[in-house]
């Protein structure tokens, strides 16, 4: 068992690392293209900023928490054979309900997080239900619900005076209340996620226990996926719908549950980010990138919940490094470069295929000759059958 697990793990890890390396090389080429003289310093900034100071490191952790949650959300659905492209909508809805909880209803932060989880879960369940009951592709439904979620949230905030920043002493009303403003602190001191001394340890206001919560949830997701009958059913549905039908597994129920849980995870992500006290929800007409970035985070980790922890940290690290490229590079160019790196990193899946082939070719002597002949012969006939 060990031997096999190790090889698979090795292939996955190697594939991710090669993809990351390729992404970084491509990022460097882009840096040279946009601003040759600063390319080298720029690249070194990109690579080292995250570790340059404890303050920057705190920012890496701070951003990685919501990324990890949306990454888990996408990964969870992937394992069940579903593509949750709606993580951003679920994340937005999670943020909304979490903020409404702590502002409008003066609830403590953990209650806000739970509300956010419920919000994401409800939003995630809709594409799941559509898929299970009417066989509507979950990608289409989730994309539509991303926009529905965004505009419902913006509309609601606009009509909830208490939620907006100007109700708490600020002049602007294009964003939600700052949870750390003096007036707000007097109103609901428990609204923000506790820092538990981490802020002092890192010397940064950004640091709180969000990343720890997210990592614990990643562990929980791993346990559900790999240790429970529920996870066994979900993965069976994901790998082979027909076989799970044949085994009497209720595929429809599992599709709904899987999307609901995926939504809940993204919803917690929204809560973790906006209850930090350092972020305010801005009323803009574009979807939040945090949800979409969950997709490369999940792909880079080959949908492994534990791997997601590391890939979320990596993406967050690159983003913090990207900020240090200013002012030599403009904000938009930085976004392009980061996007390119993440994009190439997500090639891990492709890379994994190549690497496993390479492994196979190099391990031929270990493999029982007889079994392979049968396999290849059978595959040939089977693919022919499909072609017909």
């Amino acid at each position, binding site marked *: *068992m060990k031997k*096999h697990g190790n090889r698979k793990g090795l292939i996955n890890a190697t594939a991710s690392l090669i993809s990351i390396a390729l992404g970084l090389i491509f990022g460097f080429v882009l840096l040279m293209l946009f601003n040759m003289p600063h390319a080298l310093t720029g690249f070194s900034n990109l690579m080292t900023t995250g570790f340059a100071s404890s303050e920057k490191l705190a920012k890496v952790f701070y951003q990685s928490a919501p990324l990890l949650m949306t990454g888990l959300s996408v990964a969870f659905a992937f394992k069940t054979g579903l593509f949750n492209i709606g993580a951003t909508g679920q994340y937005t809805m999670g943020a909304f309900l979490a903020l409404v909880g702590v502002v409008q209803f003066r609830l403590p932060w953990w209650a806000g997080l739970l509300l956010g989880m419920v919000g994401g879960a409800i939003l995630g369940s809709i594409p799941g239900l559509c898929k299970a009951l009417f066989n509507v592709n979950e990608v289409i439904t989730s994309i539509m619900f991303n926009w529905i979620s965004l505009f419902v949230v913006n509309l609601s905030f606009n009509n909830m005076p208490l939620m907006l920043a100007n109700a708490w002493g600020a002049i602007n009303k294009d964003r939600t209340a700052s949870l750390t403003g003096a007036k707000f602190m007097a109103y609901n001191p428990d609204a923000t996620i506790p820092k538990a001394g981490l802020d002092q340890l890192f010397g940064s206001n950004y640091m709180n226990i969000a990343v720890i919560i997210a990592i614990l949830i990643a562990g929980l997701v791993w346990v559900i996926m790999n240790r429970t009958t529920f996870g066994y059913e979900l993965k*069976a549905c994901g790998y*082979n719908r027909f076989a799970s039908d044949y085994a009497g597994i209720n595929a429809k129920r599992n599709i709904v549950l899987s999307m609901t849980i995926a939504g809940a995870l993204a919803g917690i992500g929204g809560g973790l980010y906006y209850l930090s006290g350092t972020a305010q929800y801005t009323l803009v007409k574009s979807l939040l990138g945090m949800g979409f970035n969950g997709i490369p985070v999940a792909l880079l980790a080959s949908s492994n919940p534990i791997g997601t922890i590391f890939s979320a940290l990596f993406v967050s690290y690159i983003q913090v490094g990207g900020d240090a490229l200013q002012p030599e590079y403009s904000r938009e160019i930085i976004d392009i470069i980061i996007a390119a790196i993440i994009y190439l990193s997500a090639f891990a899946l492709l890379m994994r295929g190549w690497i496993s082939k390479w492994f196979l070719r190099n391990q031929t002597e270990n*493999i029982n000759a007889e*079994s392979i*002949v*049968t*396999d290849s012969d059978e595959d040939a*006939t089977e693919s022919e059958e499909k072609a017909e």
Partner: protein
Amino acid sequence: MSEYVIEMLNITKKFPGIIANDDVTLQLKKGEIHALLGENGAGKSTLMSVLFGLYQPEEGVIKKDGEVVKINDPNDANRLNIGMVHQHFKLVQVFSVLDNIILGAEQTKHGFLQKKEARQKVMDLSHKYSLQVDPDAMIEDISVGMQQRVEILKMLFRDNDILIFDEPTAVLTPQEIDELMQIMRNFAREGKSILFITHKLNEIMAVADRVTVLRKGKCIGTVDVADTTVDELAEMMVGRKVNFEVEKAPGVLGDPALTVQNLVVGDKHHGKKKVKNVSFSVHKGEIVGIAGIDGNGQSELVYALTGLVKPESGAVYIDNHEITHDSVRARNDLGLSHIPEDRHKYGLVLDYTLAENLILKNYYSPEFQHFGFLRFDEMNKYSDALIKRFDIRSSQGGVTIARSMSGGNQQKAIVARELSLQPDVLIAVQPTRGLDVGAIEYIHKQIVAARDDRKAVLLVSLELDEVMSVSDRILVMYEGEIVAELDAKSATAQELGLYMSGANRQTRMEVEQ
């Protein structure tokens, strides 16, 4: 001039991890029918693919009429007048018979098709070899036997004189097989040379002049059919003596365990009914075999019995309990086991390990879970026991990913899982598909043992031999109906063939008796 039209000398073809053909030599004389015999995975298809230009061998040469030739692709093979009827036909379903025959060899004038001459040539060939076809019928509308004739005409149209038949009898009724054999003999008499790939020994004895036997990629030898026996060939093919007879004592019939009444199953895509008003029952201690040519409603019948498809009307009972609308899980819990026809689509989660696949039907039982957590130690204990008992071979035991196992062992895993559930009713569809002779023997024994253990067994198979040797009672399905019921002891292949092809049928009265 060489005695041989085609010689494949010392061919070696390697794939990653395996030598598919190891120093294989095959020599085909002009005007002979030469059989190529071997089990699944022995390398027959690979060798023919080399001859047809689909693979390039690492070593060895191919000679045509004594001269070395290089065959890079099927077009080269065609130029050398080598033609092949593939096991799975290569026909365009929505084209007419004529269009399929000329496809790739069209005669044109100023870029326009000249079908008139082609039609004449096809009709002439059709008469000459009594290969009756309707040139204007669509492929999708004609029977499988007819489609095979189209494939044969395709070769003749191209003036091929070296004809390769890859497992041509698998889809035919006994009568159609006889016809095909006659056609092959006619070809040989005319000086065409035939390579006949098969694993059915009696067909070789009936039609072939010489036979080359492959085993595990190696050439075991070439013998004259006149000088050999079925037993000898079987031993060459498998490497040990084989017992073809399924040994079984007379069964003790009990109460009906599975009862089907007036079952009607529709087609998902068309309005057509796939199963039409079928009624039968399977008693405890009895094996009922369903014979029929592929696509006559057997699959749909099984789907409806196992709960994968909802029937339009009718009723299904296990013992006296109606299960017509029960879920798959509920049926399983009532003691229904199902060995599915498609092991990759239904039978296994290929990306799961062998152990995980072995508990696919009972992972939720208290034995394997505790408050929703899987008990891996129990799972491994259980799978190790099954692996040992059913001799399932894999590279790493229970943790082997099912996808990496050979087809035969995948099948054994499914059989092991289903039989270990201690079912009251076992529905086995093509349980020995793609297995070697030894494994077939074993699985047949297990099925008979289940019967002797007072289980009811419904065996659905396209292999007539299997239905005849394992069953106690045989039902024949034709176009969604049960057209005959026969006692397995007295039924003959000829008789079954007539029912299977729709040429004969018992009246409803007779069936019900």
